[in-house]
């Protein structure tokens, strides 16, 4: 993990920057032990299924900036995620009572000739047309495997057009093949923002950056009471708003897997303190996070009052839920830090976590502070988790494990996973809004949804009766980690 360097056009991928891995089988405590001792090794899979790539994750952060336009320098298939993000954008507009607006996303439609003669001219033409049609405050250019391999000088084109059009035209390097960890795309997006959009602070503000996706507003009430205002970034912000995030009083991350780079960059480059604590899921995590927030904002006294109030309101109800959930077993699949947070939350509710398939593992975040290590916090607070698998969406492993473990409940955080539980007759829950389970109240919210899911058995029972699993009988009888091996030290790939 090096210092943030905003003079470089690209940010180094997570494998090299943080030593992140995508393959591990063992227990959570073993993984934490390896991470902390520097002995973390990655495992590759000799059989794999399709994953996600950086370009999608970069796009999801940049494409909902209200007055920016997107240019994806790629063959048209890479634009397959345009509409999905446009849909998310529009759902968010409804929730925020914004007028309906379509996402302005352009694809350069690279073809065979371009792979021979280069696609720079096409990129230039596309940026100009996007500017004419949209008159945006900024244009972001995301790259692709094709543009990367043919070696188009995207940075030169964007620099030239920045001068010509008089708005920031910013390249975001997020070629899919460059990283096995698709969350590297978040870092690419944030790097573009920090190096080309954010301006040096002129004055300190009472605003607090909240690096998030597009969740519900759970922070305003807390921050307003402390005399601060919540500034949700990056989706649904404006370019002008992003220019000033350097002036914020602090940065909150709802999930360090998402915000590790931006949080650290704002602190290192502009001195905006980042809240370095476990994220606020589960009682202990929320206590620690609240106290750190109070410390950074200089509101220790007020925070203690809020903690006491909220706990007094939540704890009796929590005890009721715990009684109802006693003995329930669960298997979880989720992205990295949010997965760690959900484990904490489930354990707090008294649910037995029988295992987890977590998409990747960052042994350290860009701030370098062990206080932010949510998995370590979870293991220390609630004990070890068996069957802890670092697994980048490999559904065949998941189907095999679920069939073996047969939990009462499966929780998935990402699409494409839930039906493996349901097809096996296991009630399965997916909650899209990360903020739903945040803080003390989040425990109750989540508990209620779990009870509802456990009670809703008819659908999955019938589905399981009529489902055909595409995996061979042979595979379902093998060790789930049969194809995981060939240890590669993270330094060498």
């Amino acid at each position, binding site marked *: 993990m090096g210092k943030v360097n905003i003079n470089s056009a690209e940010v180094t991928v997570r494998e090299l920057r943080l030593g992140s891995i995508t393959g591990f089988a063992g227990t959570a405590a073993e993984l934490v032990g390896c991470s902390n001792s520097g002995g973390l090794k990655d495992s590759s899979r000799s059989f794999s299924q399709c994953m996600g790539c950086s370009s999608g994750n970069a796009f999801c952060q940049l494409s909902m900036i209200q007055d920016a336009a997107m240019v994806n320098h790629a063959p048209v298939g890479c634009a397959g995620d345009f509409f999905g993000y446009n849909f998310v954008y529009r759902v968010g507009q409804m929730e925020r009572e914004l007028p309906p607006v379509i996402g302005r996303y352009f*694809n350069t439609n690279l073809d065979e000739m371009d792979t021979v003669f280069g696609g720079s001219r096409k990129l230039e033409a596309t940026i100009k047309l996007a500017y004419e049609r949209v008159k945006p405050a900024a244009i972001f250019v995301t790259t692709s495997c094709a543009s990367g391999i043919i070696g188009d000088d995207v940075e030169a084109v964007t620099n030239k057009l920045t001068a010509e059009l008089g708005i920031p035209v910013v390249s975001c390097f997020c070629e899919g093949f460059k990283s096995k960890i698709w969350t590297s795309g978040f870092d690419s997006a944030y790097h573009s923002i920090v190096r080309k959009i954010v301006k040096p602070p002129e004055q300190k503000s009472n605003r607090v950056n909240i690096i998030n996706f597009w969740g519900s507003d759970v922070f305003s009430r807390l921050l307003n009471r402390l005399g601060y205002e919540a500034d949700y970034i990056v989706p649904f912000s404006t370019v002008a708003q992003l220019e000033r995030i350097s002036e914020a009083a602090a940065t909150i991350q709802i999930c360090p897997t998402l915000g590790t780079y931006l949080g650290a960059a704002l602190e290192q480059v502009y001195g905006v303190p980042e809240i370095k604590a476990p994220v606020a899921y589960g009682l202990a995590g929320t206590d620690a996070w609240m106290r750190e927030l109070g410390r950074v904002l200089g509101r220790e006294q007020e925070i203690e009052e809020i903690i006491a109030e909220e706990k007094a309101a939540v704890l009796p109800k929590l005890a009721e839920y715990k009684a109802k959930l006693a003995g329930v077993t669960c298997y979880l699949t989720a992205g990295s830090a949010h997965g760690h947070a959900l484990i904490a939350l489930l354990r707090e509710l008294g649910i037995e976590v029988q295992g987890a398939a977590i998409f990747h593992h960052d042994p350290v975040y860009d701030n370098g502070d062990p206080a932010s290590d949510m998995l370590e916090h979870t293991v220390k607070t609630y004990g070890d988790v068996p069957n802890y698998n670092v697994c980048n969406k490999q559904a065949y492993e998941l189907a095999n494990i679920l069939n073996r473990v047969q939990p009462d409940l499966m929780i998935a955080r990402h699409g494409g996973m839930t039906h493996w539980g349901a097809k096996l007759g296991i009630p399965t829950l997916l909650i899209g809004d990360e903020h739903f389970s945040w803080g003390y109240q989040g425990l109750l919210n989540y508990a209620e949804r779990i009870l509802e899911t456990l009670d809703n058995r008819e659908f999955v029972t019938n589905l399981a009766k009529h489902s055909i699993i595409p995996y061979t009988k042979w*595979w379902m009888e093998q060790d789930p980690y049969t194809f995981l091996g060939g240890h590669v030290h993270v330094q060498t790939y």
Partner: protein
Amino acid sequence: MSKLIEQPRYSCALGVQQSVIAIPRTVPVVHAGPGCSTKIHGFLGQGEGYAGGSTIPCTNASEAEIVFGGEGKLRSVIDGAFKVIDADLYVVLTGCTSDIVGDDVGQVTRDYQDLGKPLVYVETGGFKSNNYVSHDHVIKAIVEQYVDKFAEGRGVIPGLVNLLATVPYQDPYWIGNLQELKRLLTGIGLQVNVLFGPESEGISEWLSIPQAQFNIVVSAWPGLRSAELLERKYGTPYYHFPYLPVGGIETGRFLREVTGFGALDQDSAEAFIRSEERKFYAHIERTADFMLEFRYGLPRVFYTMLDATYAVGFAKYLLNELGILPAETQYVVDQTPEEYRGRIADQFRHISERRSAAVEFVEDGGAIQEAIRANKPKQRALLLGSGWERDLARELGADLLPVSVPITYRLILNCGYAGYQGGLRLIEDIYDRVLDTYR
């Protein structure tokens, strides 16, 4: 040179993974970067099917495969796919990474084929074409690398036809359309290989492809290359109906022409058609008063922003059977190859006996929307487009029926617009949207 695209309505060559997963018990093995399959599935798919979505085996090409080549990784994933995925046929599809660095995927595949494995390959690097074009490439690969090797039956089976009618998932209504077309062709005495979807027997149908009496293409242009291939290889003649037959007039024309082409029993075919027409027009007649009398406003002019097959088929039906007039300019969004454009323009020129419309071939949806905004319709309009048209429709006070991908605002199971049943369904869907606008 291909042009830039705002609001894409089709995918790249690799998008054809969706055609592969549409074949029962067939699985793609994607040799591409890590995000391709997921993006394609997200854009075109509604549901994983048997082995699509998160099930798709993929090499997830990384820097190492770009620098050192990805053949080893591909072999390893193919080995795993045979062990882990329970399928009849495995189809290797390459992506940009593999096609640019030049992996010899043909050689890798041949090594498995030499061992008798049901494996074929197609080069589908995204930049090479789009999924309308590569759909024919996949059919060619399966025919040449699998059917020719494993087909045991010999000789023409009278009455057996292969139907090449839709690009699965790119056509959101492919299942329903195949269902209706199969029902109709069965009705005039044919046995139909639909090749894709739940109406298909799967790989046994593919193995009988060479034995068809003739082939039927129901499409403006995708599928034609396959019919030509089968004619060259097996001498199978083909009948081509160049748009989607919707409703009474065009479905009748289609079935009568097929009957003639295949020298089928005229009397029984005619009896079937008459019985279908009687039922179809009973509905039209029953609702004619609604169409004529509903005084609060019905769409009177339509815009198609669809692929050529749908654009022509819908235009003919809406004008000739529902009395909705075509806007001056219609749009075809499927990057129709130059050689087919003349015929499509001609169809629009003779959309009815007395009316014509101009057609423009534009892939850039943003440009189409700008053109429509610049020349707003005076009457209440019906947009036959995609999910991208939501705001445009609101601005124009128009009714929108999403027919093309992205189709996100509809959940489609076996809804189809082909044939008699499709024609009725289209009426229901259009006027359902229209009536729903009243408070």
